[in-house]
């Protein structure tokens, strides 16, 4: 993290942190612009961009037609020719519509051109269920974009991370997919005063612990911290690591932790099968093989389209209780409880 000018912090919401990051970068660099559906006067349906159009005008905060592929493509071209677009894709579920422009164009242009073109574009979108929004407005599709060379993928879990990472993403010369949990927007957290950025590819230890390493992304960080509280009551000390970016993924910090704890649970809100948890768990199982006292467990969204009905939806996403139960079971069944590395 580039040092904030002052160590002072203040409490703002996650939404406000995003808004500040955009405002600061729009102010700092006239090449930056924001485009998307209802981003200007409406400030998006989530109101996250409120006020930006007043300061920066409709030339730089641009309401688009409902043309996700088109605006993403337009941003690729703008990025190649000297602009730094931030494209707003309202729901992560609509990534389905932009994959060609994002994956076949944005992600590959630099490589295919042998380095002569570059695409400094940020695609902001959202993830997450439990809003009673049903199957087409609840997905968490980070696994798709994390799979693609040429894309960076950011999944902040706190207001401070969101602000620092978004500023870095906008300054990055590559296409960056920036995924926000819709439920995070109203959550409040400490954010440094003044200018700061956070590098992509560096995980963050959100809670230190000795018995198990919970690797959790975005929405699942808070759930894991709550799980850690529950576990602490039962005498289990959980370390919670937030990779913050799934690509690049900070192998080192995760492995160091697992070497210490000997156990790991990976939690992400995407579907479990072929999800982000698979890569992280496989990586841990491979790189920390000789330190593991127990199999790496994974928790993700249930492998079903997200249902509308509340009692059904509520069982589709990992809860603090489910995470804690998985950890407890893991600790109970692996011999070296609290014994540190099993190497």
């Amino acid at each position, binding site marked *: 993290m580039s040092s904030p000018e002052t160590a002072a912090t203040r409490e703002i919401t996650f939404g406000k942190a995003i808004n500040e990051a955009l405002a600061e970068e729009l102010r700092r660099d006239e090449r930056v612009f924001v485009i998307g559906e209802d981003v200007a006067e409406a400030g998006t349906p989530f109101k996250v961009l409120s006020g930006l159009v007043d300061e920066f005008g409709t030339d730089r905060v641009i309401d688009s*037609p409902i043309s996700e592929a088109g605006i993403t493509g337009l941003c690729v071209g703008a990025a190649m020719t000297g602009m730094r677009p931030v494209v707003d894709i309202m729901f992560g579920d609509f990534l389905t519509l932009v994959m060609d422009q994002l994956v076949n164009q944005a992600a590959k242009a630099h490589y295919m051109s042998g380095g002569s073109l570059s695409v400094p574009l940020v695609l902001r979108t959202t993830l997450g269920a439990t809003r009673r929004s049903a199957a087409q407005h609840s997905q968490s599709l980070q696994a798709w974009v994390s799979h693609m060379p040429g894309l960076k993928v950011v999944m902040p879990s706190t207001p401070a991370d969101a602000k620092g990472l978004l500023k870095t993403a906008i300054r990055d010369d590559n296409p960056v997919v920036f995924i926000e949990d819709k439920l995070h927007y109203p959550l409040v957290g400490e954010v440094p005063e003044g200018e700061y950025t956070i590098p992509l590819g560096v995980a963050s230890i959100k809670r230190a612990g000795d018995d198990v390493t919970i690797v959790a992304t975005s929405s699942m960080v808070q759930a894991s911290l709550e799980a850690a509280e529950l576990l602490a009551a039962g005498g289990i000390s959980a370390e919670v690591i937030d990779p913050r970016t799934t690509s690049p993924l900070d192998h080192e910090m995760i492995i160091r932790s697992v070497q210490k704890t000997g156990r790991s649970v990976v939690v992400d809100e995407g579907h479990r099968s072929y999800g982000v948890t698979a890569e992280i768990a496989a990586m841990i199982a491979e790189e920390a093989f000789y330190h593991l006292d127990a199999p790496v467990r994974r928790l993700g969204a249930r492998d079903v389209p997200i249902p509308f009905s509340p009692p059904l939806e509520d069982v589709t996403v990992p809860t603090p209780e489910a995470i804690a139960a998985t950890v407890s079971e893991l600790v109970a069944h692996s011999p070296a409880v609290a014994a540190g590395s099993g190497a």
Partner: protein
Amino acid sequence: MAMSDEAAIVPVDPAGLDPWLQRYREMVTIRMFEERVNELYRSGKMPGLAHLYIGEEAVAVGVCSGLKQDDLITSTHRGHGHCLAKGADIGRMYAELLGKEAGYCHGKGGSMHIADHANGNLGANAIVGGSAGIATGAAFSAKHRGSGQVVACFFGDGALGQGLLYEVMNMASLWTLPVIYVCENNLYNEYTHYLEVTAGDVLARPRAFGIEAVEVDGQDVRAVREATDRLVQRARGGDGPAFLLCNTYRYHGHHVGDIDRGYYRSVEEEQEWRGQRDPIAVLGGWLSEQGIAGEAELQRHNDDVRRLVENGLAFALDAPFPEVSEVDRHVFA
């Protein structure tokens, strides 16, 4: 809501009624159904959000009344009107909106995904323009199977921004498919006026693909129906697709939570549409003028519809949620 008078109401048998009086009842049903949806939301009884169709009733009723039961429709996020107009049961619809097992989708779909296969509703869709392919494919299938079915594809002005629409209109035209693209232009893509995001001439778009395109007053159910009849006849007769542009207006917010609308549209505009161009008032006035039904008669129908709506709602409120184990069912057929 004059609930206390309910016991006094004598149920109406809609069969045998004048067809326009039936249309009147259908529009009133949608209106009353949704007024209750709004209340359910505000009182915290309905999970999630809903996009109200109030103000646009003449479009769904005008189009769907011109279809046979086995004709097909695809619907949108703003789909309650389409679903009711195509014959769905009020109680099962409310049940779906409340996530109950008795709902059309056993609670799995909710407001944005209601499908009523038996009545030919292939489903609401929460992807703007997302059903254009489905509707076109259903028409392809109808033609291929020789079923004689016609398909109506409902979508909003916002869907004009989705490339998929142009891809499938091209195929519908090439293969003379029996599909009618019904564009419900309610002036807004969410919170943005359609003219800010829609270039050129809307009707010229389908026409460029060789598709017959007409514009109607979407507040006048008789006009919508008349146009529909002609386009359905063409489609059924093998003359291919059409595009029906219906100019209409939603009275409420983009969704039930959209209360402060001043930043994107004026109260005057809302009042003008509500006051001058209400589809129920327009048809009611005509029914009176024609001597088909006077005010008292219309009131009797309003009351009767209210009774049906309340019954349906009561059924749904009482109905149980699905068992949690249902969550794993229906992933695969």
